[in-house]
Each structure stands twice: as C-alpha cells, then as structure tokens.
C-alpha cells in the first residue's frame, strides 16, 4: 500500500479503530493475543534467560549494521563466487526495473512468489501485472490477500483480520469451488490451484530472512514449503533483499533463527529453513539455473545514518504487533503502510522519506507502554524511537495539518503549560484556581477535558490540598 498523499488527522488511527467492525476487531485481537502467548510460553520453556538471548541477537544485528560497509561487499563477493548475480537498487523504481529486465531477458510471462515484505514495499505485484506478467502469491495468507485485492495487515499473518467465513467466500468468488469454510478444504483448494501455477511459472521470486556475509548463504524460512516449490519448478530465482538482512557469520544464524521462529509463530524452528547461495551447480538435479539477488536500499542507508538506526535490526517477526494493545484494537490497516504495529509506526514514516509528514501521526498512536521493546527478539528500543519521531514531527511542523484535524491537544497548549510549570508562583496559582474545573459544565471545558470527560468521571480537583496539609503539619 503506498503512503497516501493526503495528510491525515492526528487521530487517524483512532478513527480507523472506532470504525472497525466487531468481527474484525475480535479476529485481530484474539489472533495477536494467541500469537503472543505462544511466543512467551516457548521462549520461557526453552531458555533460562530469554532476555539475554534477545540482547545477544540485537547485538549481532547492530554489529552487522554498524559494519555494513564491510559485510555487504563480503556477502556480494560470496554470492558472485557461487554463481549468483548481484544487483543493487537505490529505490523501489530501480528494484522493479531490475526484476523486469531479468524477466524480459528470459521472456517470462508468469512468476510465482513466496512471502516477502520487501516486494510489498516496492509494490512489485501490481507493477508486474501492468507489464503483462502474472505474479502469483503462494503463501496461503498472501494468496487470499491477492485474490481479495486486499493488503496484508500483519507482517507474519497477512490475513489475521479475516475469519474463515470471509476466506471461504473469497475462494468461492475466485472460482475455487462452492462455499466451504472447513480449513482443510480451503487449504486443499488453494494448494491444487497453486500447483499448476508453480509448474507453468518462468521464475520464482522470494525475499530473504537473512544473508550471511561469511558464506553468502541466503536464508529463507517458511512454514508451507512454498518457497521451495517456487524454486524447484522454475528456471530462475530472484531474491529481493533489504540491505539490513546481512548477518556477519553462518553461526549467527543459530541465535537468530531460534529467536525468529519463537517470536514469530511460537515454533522452535520454522518448518522449512532453506540455505541458498547460487544457482543449480553442475551435477545437481534441479534448482534454478539462474539466481539473482537484488539488494534494496529504498531509504535504509538514510535510516542507518540517523538516530533511528536501531529499527533496522528488525527481523520482521511480528511479536511487537502481537503484544501491542493499540495494534490489537486498531488492526494493521490502520497504519496505512506495508509495516504496521509498533515497528511500522517507526519504519513507515522513516521509509516514506520526503513524505514523512503523511505518516508522522503514526508515532503518536502508542501509549508508550513498552511491551514492544520487552518482546522484541533484537531488543529494539521502539518507545524511544517513537518519542524521537514525535519530536521530529513537532520540529518539522507536520502535526495537525488536515482540515478536520482539530488536534485534541491544541497547538500552544504545552507551551502555555511549560510557562506555568517553570514558575512556582504561577503553578501555585493554578493549583488554587483549577478548582473552577469542578464546577464548569462539560460543554464549556477545553477540548482535552471534554474528551476525557466523555470516557471518565473526572476526579475532583484538590489543587494545593497536599501543600496545605504539609504546612499545617510542620507548624504543629
């Protein structure tokens, strides 16, 4: 989903949440809650100190990012040495052009895709369709998203917002048989449909979960085995990889794969873990004869050079979405971008580049509860980054801009508050006179208090009472 060119009201996420239907709200809340509980159970069952593991994983990723100038060329050299072709794309346009050029050179008419957030980020599917190339999503969730012309609402579970009745309807609409919402039937029908697509496709497109600089090994994890089919049946493998996916050594994968599967899906290891570093070698029976790795920047080096660089550690596990109380109420689509939840609230405005303002409300869509940091397998200080982004949005003057965007906390309110809170005489005066609030009708109160009053019975103002008590006590 592209970032909307319109500026949004500061409470756009809240409005989206309020407008959400009960089914959808329940599906997202219960789905993410279950994901969080599975994650917690398995991490604390398997490890004496999961927090130590999170910190280690975070340190590995941070080290790789801090030395990307060393590790990225190393990965490139290894991949080339094993016969892969390596391309670099500065932005989405370049990445798409690389893909199109590769496919045209092979005369490709159809591709099969395994799940990849980067391909969502560069809107590859619609681009290929415009150029007459059929692109089929083979991850079951992404497949449903595709036939519904929808967008993924979760990094790992793209259709967390749909219940199985909706999914059964989607399959029926797409001509995959009469309505049947039995999960096994849904899966079997999609599987049969996809089998034929694999066999007729000219290329397989994947992302990558990690790339080892030491060996050039590109690591792909899936639970459905669909990425293997994408590669086994086609002659050409194109992997789109964000440059932040580099890890220094193969042995680092021992830590990262263990935290990824547990954090993402509550598994010890995903069902399929593939290590790839080149096309089919002489003597190998199958596998693509061509392998292309496209390393994508698309704003990442800018983030790397900024005070938000820790967000690039993210391994896209979705644990922060699952635990986030705001995500649970609002759902992923509320975030208007490819990446949703806490990580999306940081990453989307940053990757938007000069369109920062269009998404600068997202960092405020958080109670700063810190649960995201607590579960993050690479220990990203997400709340701190959200706070910095709020400061940045404020300095850039990008908050409260659209016509219906009467902010709940009006501009200037905090400046006025600071005037009072830095002058003890004014503060004491305010404590003494604030009692008027107890008698002011709801309609005449300032907007923040009015909104507060809609949800809460206001506690009575007792400004200065403590100071009075203390003074009397000291005199006694």
């Amino acid at each position, binding site marked *: 989903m592209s970032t909307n060119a319109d500026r949004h009201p500061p409470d756009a996420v809240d409005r989206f*949440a309020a407008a959400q239907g009960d089914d959808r709200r329940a599906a997202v809340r219960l789905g993410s809650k279950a994901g969080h509980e599975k994650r917690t159970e398995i991490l604390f069952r398997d490890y004496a100190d999961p927090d130590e593991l999170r910190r280690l994983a975070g340190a590995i990723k941070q080290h790789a990012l801090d030395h990307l100038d060393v590790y990225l060329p190393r990965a490139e050299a290894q991949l080339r040495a094993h016969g892969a072709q390596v391309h670099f794309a500065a932005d989405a346009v370049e990445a798409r052009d690389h893909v199109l050029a590769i496919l045209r050179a092979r005369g490709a008419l159809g591709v099969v895709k395994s799940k990849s957030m980067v391909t969502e980020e560069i809107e590859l599917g619609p681009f290929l369709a415009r150029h007459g190339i059929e692109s089929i999503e083979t991850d079951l969730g992404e497949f449903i998203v595709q036939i519904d012309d929808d967008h993924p609402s979760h990094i790992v579970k793209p259709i967390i917002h749909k219940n199985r009745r909706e999914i059964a309807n989607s399959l029926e609409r797409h001509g995959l048989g009469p309505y049947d919402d039995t999960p096994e039937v849904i899966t079997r029908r999609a599987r049969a449909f996809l089998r034929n697509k694999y066999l007729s496709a000219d290329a397989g497109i994947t992302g990558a979960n990690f790339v080892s600089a030491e060996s050039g090994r590109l690591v792909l994890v899936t639970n459905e085995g669909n990425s293997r089919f994408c590669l086994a049946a086609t002659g050409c493998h194109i992997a789109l990889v964000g440059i932040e996916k580099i890890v220094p050594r193969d042995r680092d994968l021992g830590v990262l794969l263990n935290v990824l599967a547990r954090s993402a899906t509550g598994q010890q290891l995903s069902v399929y873990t593939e290590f790839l570093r080149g096309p089919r070698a002489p003597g190998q029976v199958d596998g693509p004869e061509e392998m292309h790795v496209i390393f994508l920047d698309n704003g990442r080096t800018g983030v790397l050079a900024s005070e938000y660089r820790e967000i690039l550690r993210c391994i896209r596990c979705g644990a922060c979405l699952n635990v986030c109380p705001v995500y649970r109420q609002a759902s992923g689509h509320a975030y208007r971008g490819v990446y949703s939840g806490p990580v999306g609230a940081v990453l989307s405005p940053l990757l938007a580049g000069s369109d920062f303002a269009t998404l600068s409300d997202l960092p405020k869509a958080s*109670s700063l509860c810190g649960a995201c*940091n607590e579960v993050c397998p690479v220990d990203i200080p997400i709340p701190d980054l959200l706070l910095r982004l709020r400061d940045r949005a404020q300095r850039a003057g990008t908050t409260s801009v659209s016509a219906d965007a009467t902010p709940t906390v009006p501009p200037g309110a*905090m400046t006025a*508050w600071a005037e009072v*809170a830095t002058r003890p005489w004014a503060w004491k005066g305010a404590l003494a006179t604030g009692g008027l609030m107890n008698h002011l009708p709801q309609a005449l109160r300032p907007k923040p208090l009015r909104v507060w009053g809609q949800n809460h019975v206001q506690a009575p103002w007792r400004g200065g009472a403590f100071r009075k008590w203390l003074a009397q006590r000291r005199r006694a």
Partner: protein
Amino acid sequence: MSARGAVNQSPPPRRVSLMATCLCDAFFDDVAQATVEVLEHLGCEVAFPEDQTCCAQPAFNAGEWDSARRVARHTLGVFRGDDAVVVPSGSCARMVDHGALLLFENEPDRPEVEGLAQRTWELCDFIVRGLGVTRWPGRLKARVAFHRSCHSRGTRYAESALALLRSIDGVEVVPFGEGEQCCGFGGTFSVGFPHISRAMGTLKIDHVLAVKPDLLVSADSSCLMHIGGLADRLGREMQRQHVAVVLRDALKSSGTAA
C-alpha cells in the same frame, strides 16, 4: 520506556526529597500525604521543595521537547543537591531516570540530568531496594489485584510493590488476565486516541473485575485515575487505591503510624 534505564545503586540515605508529582498536587493529595507518612515511619526525614511542579513528561510524550526541556530544567534546579528523591509514581520516576536522558541526549547539562536520574527512586523500589525493608507491618483483610503499570517494565518497581503488599497480614494478591497489558492511559494518548484508550481500559476493567478483588492497587495514580474514572463512567464498581495509601493504612491498623 526502554527496558533498561539507569539502575539506582546509591546507598540508602535517610534524608529524602519528596517529588510529589503534579497529579498528587492537583488531585490526589492523600497519596502524597501517605507517602510522607510511610517515609517518616521508615525513619526518613522528608523534605518537600516548595518550587516543584512537574517532571515534564506530558510535553515530552507529546513530542514538544522544547517545552519539556524547560520544565525538566526547572525540576533539575528544584531538586539540586545530593538527597535521594523519592516519587510515588513509577511513571514520573522513569521520566527522570530514563526519559530525561533521551530528552537531554545532546544537551550540555546532560551530566546534571544523569545525576538526578541516579538518585531518584520510585517509592516501593526505595523502600525495598534502597532501605532493604521487605516486610510491612499491619493488617488488611483484602483480595488485592495489582496493576503493573507499564513504566515498571524493565525495573524492579512492580516486584518491590508486590513484595510489600504480600507481606501485609491478610493481603491476598490475586492475578488477573493479560496483566502485562497497558490500561490505555498513556497521558495525552488517552485524549488523542479516546476510542482505543477506552477499549484498552475496558478490557483491563473486565479482567480485574473477573477475579472479584476487594481492591485494585497500583503504584501509579495516573493509571488508577484512568481505570477508575472509566469504571465510574461505565457504572462498574471498582475500589482502587494507590500503594502508598495501602501501606499507610496498614500502619494505622497496626498502630505504628508516624
């Protein structure tokens, strides 16, 4: 807040400065009073710097960091010196020992900010880890649901409060569902995102009331103001109390109040 801030390691001094918090100054005087009585019971000499106002968190969270720095600098001046600063709020404590460090990252007076961070304590943390007191006298016959405020993440605040509560004769701490979830206050979040905040708060109330406690206790007045005010608005009866008040009332019951 991030999981790891400055961990207070300073030795337990007996002269303390009370940071009463703006919420106690405006609404919850009994919590500040109880804090004084609890600290005095423990043998502390409690100073109350009259010029104090607020820890600066409202503007900090709102992204208005210029205003936040002005107020934080004022607070820095008010609490100048070497005294331990004790605050009956995990949220304000974390603003001083973590948020302010972020706020002053590139400021010349960051060392002073670090100094204040090092000697600022959340009340229960001060009692348990600062003074080494882990058992609380008195009696309170009550099933207590304890709300772990989010600012206790990555700290020992909640464990300290729970240790004290559990040590009170008659108190039974009862766990409730999704205890690690935020109540939905979040300062200006609660008015900027009122629907989500209300939904989060309602869920918290559902979970708490499901275990039928006599009392909801928290170490943060702000969470209690939100949860309680919302429960009142929804017409759902919910007794709630700040932990400082529970500790003080336990002292009274045992006849050992200062």
